[in-house]
């Protein structure tokens, strides 16, 4: 599919997955992780994608340009654990064609 982009996701066990993500289905990164079942159900996307639980926290490894962080994402990350400078909430990153080659690592469950 020409609208698909390739993303590299390292799961919580350290296994690297190279996956195709559609850019025309209004999917976010958390939903991509769930659709490929890269983290057990119930351990990711707990709040459904409202930036209210941080279960989809990930570390952005590539220098891909991403949408700027909004207030609610920043506030949630300030209450989350294992937060690093490159932490983002997967649910707040909508997949767009510009994100081809994005590389992320899922943060530990907490």
């Amino acid at each position, binding site marked *: 599919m020409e609208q698909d982009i390739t993303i590299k996701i390292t799961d919580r066990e350290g296994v690297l997955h190279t996956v195709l993500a559609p850019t025309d289905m209004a999917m976010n990164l958390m939903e991509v992780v769930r659709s490929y079942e890269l983290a057990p159900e*119930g351990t990711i996307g707990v*709040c459904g994608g409202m930036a209210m639980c941080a279960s989809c926290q990930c570390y952005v490894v590539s220098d891909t340009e991403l949408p700027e962080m909004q*207030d609610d994402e920043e*506030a*949630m990350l300030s209450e989350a*654990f294992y937060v690093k400078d490159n932490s983002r909430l997967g649910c707040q990153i909508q997949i767009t064609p510009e994100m081809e080659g994005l590389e992320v690592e899922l943060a530990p469950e*907490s």
Partner: protein
Amino acid sequence: MIKTDILIIGAGPTGLFAVFEAGLLKLKCHLIDALPQIGGQCSEIYPKKPIYDIPGFPEVLAGDLTDNLMEQCKQFEPGFTLGERAETIEKQEDGSFIVTTNKGTKHQAPVVAIAGGLGSFEPRKPLIDNIAYFEDKGVEYFIKDPEMYRNKRVVISGGGDSALDWSIYLSNIASKVTLIHRRNEFRGALDSVDKVQELKNQGKIDLITPAEVINVVGDHKVDAVVVAQSKNIEREFEVECDHFIPLFGLSPKLGPIANWGLEIEKNAIVVNNALDYQTNIPGIFAIGDVNTYPGKLKLILCGFHEATLMCQAAYQIINPGKKYVLKYTTVSGVNGFDGTRKEAPKQVVKAID
């Protein structure tokens, strides 16, 4: 011992609607929930957020949906055991089950319906090495009885609604309230943020930001917490206190239910969706987000359907061989266990001159 017809584990939307459907079949329900209030995720995570896919409601706030479901089922007088987590289940010789909570409350019913969503909500504990040692010795993750903080020195950490609201509440009870957060910004209802600002200005709340509690100090009980602050320069210091209350939200865990001998797949309970949402143990059903089957969707509206079919199967178990026909509420009305009756108004039959 609390006895009922259907024991429902989980007081979220699916569990509450099951009370209504059971009531139409003259079956009584009792609900257990680990949270101190009803509504499950709808009230714990997103009470002020709108839902757009409840049939017949173009838009409804999750908190209002909870209120409506309670209003809808209240004439069937459901019992509640709130703030307790269902821990063990034992099958009795007569086929019924006894479910005991973590506080030892016992419940007996011929049918158990697990409507546990993603599981019971457990506090998210900060990553402090020795924190487990101080649990129940001054470290609490929930505030159950605010009176225990009267004239005590309390440190609260967190940046969301509960940290703000409890800081406000305890500022009238505790001798000292210190609120510690990693950022200067707080995330909560605007009036809570304003109120904390006001109490800070009045000297009723000590605010330490941006900072983090990194250690707990004490001998058999909390004496102080070690705070790392990174304002201009990094520094560490102790704040003396009697209680340390980390409020970093809750995360759901399937918990003890996972050990009940039920077939589990992907953190959910496998059920027979071709029939009645029964689990591999006859008499135990799983409805709503907690179950799984081919094509499962975790939607509130699917939970309502599952609850309805589960009640029909429960009726057969509780009243073996007894005849039943589906009745429409518009035709038959709703007869509450409390003596109330709802019914469609009679049509007017009158001549026109």
